[in-house]
């Protein structure tokens, strides 16, 4: 124990002695309840609670978590808040918004406009970044946002007013709104120093040519974010009394079916611009210009505004909407979304978290820098680690060629596929095995160009053999690469591997996927190529190996994707998945957990039902980990495989136990058996030298 911990503890004891009992009587002897009381009722920090209780902060944390798991504390979302989340989600989905925030409707303690302003102020704090130019329109809502906004730590932000100014006979003029927002977020302010509406089009054009106003519009054109309200044209709307528009002109827009105003411009119910007498006399942002701004944040609520907001959404003027639940629901209903209420009422009212264990986590820990760079960074490592065996083709880490592989007069062997299966496929590149490997993204085929580069590099004038697993994506990409090779006079033959006997019934053998048995197919193909056999002979030997290789996998736990750090499907706590593929595809049968021997027997029974081996026949065995299963358990599986084979008097000619074809961090293993004949035995023992397999 460190000095620091000691003193902290001492400190706690001292306070406990001075003040409270070790555990106050009213909590009985339940420290969980005591910790919860201090945390939830007395609002103390976990650190303070640790001192008072004389325990570590970590223990307090785990008490609090356990209390939730045990139901001592129930945390529930207020239904109105939950519903506002669903409405926001549906609005976002239905209108293809970048984001949407919906404030609950049933809290009438504050005026709607203040609550919208508060929500928008919070949203601004998330959406604004240093260096932004924010275009700000006028309106009561915008002013309400300014009153509550504060975004600390922003640098180099510019606020630009989107329209000219108006007489200051109302409280939310364009100048004031822009300046209030600029003040709140400490941004540089650019006003448009011209009237919003001028008497004639000629005056507008003249003003727009003024260098000062031109420079202000240049600043506006740099806006990457916009903040605006949406005005309704209903009779009670403040737009009629604001004096922003002359009422005579307003009537003309209304007569042409205008339903709303966005940044000083009129739109109809579909969001189309409505032409009218003010168009040429308005100095301010146009609707087209508004749409070029990347993030367009509209803040508006109130039932009378539903048609106007819907129109703005339909017109695509908004991609971030901040509104309230009643309005949001109204917008969705008006646009024909009626399932929402059903969805809401059908939502099961179970607090799932109460049943989760305290150590439940939603993300898997991984060694990552930027998740988007995993493949590139892995390949950087591979190219350096295995430089003795392989090198990039033309600098691309996605196409790797064996240093001593391709040679004139030899059939070239190209393998490949997605990543996430390491050491497949790149570990099998080297003398006597694959000549080149094409590397895709995680669980995703490489593109044709990459595969063609490999074919080109592997070609020794005697043709090239493609060997890869049977997946729709791989087949399409390798086939396209084969066409490209043909155009360059390289003859390509393809063997698609189909060793996974669990993936389709025997009648549909060709539809089966290729899994860890690739190890054997690559080995046989590589040996045939290295011995200088013809393209025909190499293809035939590989097809034979594929026909005589039988694999079945079992997953105990799913794998997790580096990008999401989440498991990409679920397996129940007591379940296993038999027939699991190497991409985390679900298996074909789900069963209860059983012993290692029972699992091995299930797999071996299935293999024996297809492999017609007679007593005295020879096989090669591969017991392969899917990633997270340790060697210890693989040997336990191998032990039973050996027992089953020897009971049938089948001889194991060679065996491999370890990580040969993985599926990221899946817990599980596969068993592959290659039914040998003389030719295959010879080819299996042919020398090879690669990063993960060396023979001879």
């Amino acid at each position, binding site marked *: 124990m460190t000095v620091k911990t000691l003193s902290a503890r001492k400190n706690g004891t001292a306070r406990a002695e001075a003040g409270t009992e070790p555990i106050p009587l009213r909590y009985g002897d339940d420290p969980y309840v005591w910790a919860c009381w201090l945390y939830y009722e007395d609002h103390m920090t976990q650190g303070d609670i640790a001192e008072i209780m004389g325990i570590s902060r970590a223990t307090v944390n785990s008490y609090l978590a356990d209390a939730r798991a045990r139901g001592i504390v129930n945390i529930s979302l207020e239904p109105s808040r939950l519903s506002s989340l669903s409405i926001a989600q549906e609005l976002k989905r239905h209108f*293809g918004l*970048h984001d949407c925030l919906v404030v609950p409707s049933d809290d009438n303690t504050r005026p709607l406009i203040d609550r919208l302003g508060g929500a928008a102020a919070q949203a601004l704090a998330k959406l604004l970044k240093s260096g932004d130019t924010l275009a700000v329109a006028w309106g009561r809502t915008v002013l309400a946002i300014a009153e509550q906004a504060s975004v600390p730590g922003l640098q180099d932000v510019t606020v630009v007013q989107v329209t000219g100014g108006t007489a200051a006979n109302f409280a939310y003029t364009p100048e004031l709104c822009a300046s209030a927002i600029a003040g709140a977020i400490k941004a540089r302010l650019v006003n448009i120093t011209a009237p919003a509406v001028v008497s004639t089009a000629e005056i507008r054009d003249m003003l727009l040519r003024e260098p000062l106003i031109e420079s202000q519009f240049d600043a506006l054109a740099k806006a990457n974010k916009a903040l605006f309200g949406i005005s309704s044209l209903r009779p009670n709307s403040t737009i009629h009394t604001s004096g922003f528009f002359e009422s005579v002109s307003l009537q003309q827009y209304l007569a042409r079916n205008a339903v709303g105003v966005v940044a000083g411009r009129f739109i109809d119910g579909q969001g*189309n*611009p409505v*032409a009218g007498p003010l168009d040429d006399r308005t100095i301010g942002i146009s609707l*087209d210009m508004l*749409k070029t701004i990347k993030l367009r944040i509209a803040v508006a609520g109130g039932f009378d505004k539903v048609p106007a907001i819907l129109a703005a959404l339909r*017109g*695509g003027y908004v991609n971030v909407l901040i509104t309230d639940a009643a309005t949001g629901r109204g917008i969705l209903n008006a646009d024909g979304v009626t399932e929402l209420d059903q969805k809401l009422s059908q939502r099961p009212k179970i607090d799932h978290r109460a049943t989760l264990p305290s150590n439940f986590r939603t993300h898997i820990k991984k060694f990552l820098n930027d998740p*988007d760079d995993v493949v590139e960074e892995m390949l950087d490592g591979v190219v350096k680690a295995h430089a003795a065996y392989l090198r990039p083709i033309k600098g691309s880490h996605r196409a790797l060629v064996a240093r001593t592989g391709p040679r004139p007069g030899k059939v070239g062997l190209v393998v490949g596929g*997605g990543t996430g299966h390491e050491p497949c496929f790149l570990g099998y590149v080297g003398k006597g095995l694959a000549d080149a490997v094409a590397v*895709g*993204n*995680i*669980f*995703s*085929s*490489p*593109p*044709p*160009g*990459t595969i063609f580069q490999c074919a080109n590099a592997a070609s020794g004038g005697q043709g090239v053999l493609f060997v890869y697993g049977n*997946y*729709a*994506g791989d087949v*399409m*990409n390798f086939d*396209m690469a084969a066409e490209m090779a043909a155009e360059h006079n390289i003859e390509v033959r393809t063997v698609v591997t189909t060793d996974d006997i669990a*993936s*389709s019934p025997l009648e549909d053998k060709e539809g089966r*996927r290729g899994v860890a048995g690739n190890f054997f197919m690559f080995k046989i193909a590589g040996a045939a190529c290295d011995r200088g056999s013809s393209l025909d002979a190499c293809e035939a030997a590989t097809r034979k190996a594929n026909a005589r290789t039988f694999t079945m996998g079992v997953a105990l736990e799913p794998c997790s*994707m580096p*990008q*999401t750090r*989440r498991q*990409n*499907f679920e397996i129940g706590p007591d379940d296993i998945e038999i*027939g699991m*593929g190497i*991409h*985390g*595809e*679900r298996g*074909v049968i789900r069963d209860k957990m059983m012993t290692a021997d029972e699992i091995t027997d299930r797999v071996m029974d299935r293999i024996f039902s297809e492999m017609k081996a007679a007593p005295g026949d020879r096989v090669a065995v591969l017991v392969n980990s899917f990633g997270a299963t340790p060697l210890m358990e693989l040997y336990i599986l191998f032990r039973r495989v050996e027992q089953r084979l020897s009971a049938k008097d089948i001889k194991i000619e060679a065996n491999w136990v370890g990580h040969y074809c993985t599926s990221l961090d899946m817990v599980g293993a596969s068993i592959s058996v290659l039914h040998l004949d003389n030719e295959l035995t010879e080819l299996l023992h042919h020398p090879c030298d690669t990063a993960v397999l060396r023979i001879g």
Partner: protein
Amino acid sequence: MQQFENASAGDIVLSLADRIIENRAYLSEIDGKIGDGDHGVNMAKGFGMAADRIRGNDMSLATAFDTLGTVLMTEIGGSMGPLYGVMFTQFAETIEKSSSIDARTFSAMLSNGLDGIQSIGSAKVGDKTLLDTLVPAIQAFDAANASGKPFPEALDALVVAAEKGRDSTRDLVAKIGRASRLGERSVGVLDAGATSCALILKALALGAKQKLLISATAGR
């Protein structure tokens, strides 16, 4: 005749890329239930790369489609790379000679895209693939045109049918691709390809509608 200008419509492809990138996590999540969970990531990567090449280059719609198609086809891999790659390349080839795009050209473009997909893939409608979105969407668009609906309304019909088609995959058994090995267990989950296809068609239709609007305003 309602039409929009090809030369200035390349930015439609940018908005299409935006939709895919925004939905990256969602697409991967639904793909993770019955596939391998990479759909959103790979799509976002491809569309993002294409958008970087299109942005700021003032491309025509045809050139932007060609850029997107080429990136998907040659640099992305997977199964969606070639399938969407061929679709967008066909889109580009259909419209490259047209200075403006009317409903008839738009329909031909969609049909040729579909032909391209069917020439390299073997799926049919009902197999729980992107075709369950694309085929009914094209049919709805053509039917709306045949009944004399204006171009924008035909685009609305296209979106409605695409989303309905996407939703139909929830009840289908996968017949092709990795999910097909699950048989009946694929029922109850949307197909990721059908979902991304609906996103693409909706963004395309919205983009085209906006262009029609602009050209209508300019023409007035």
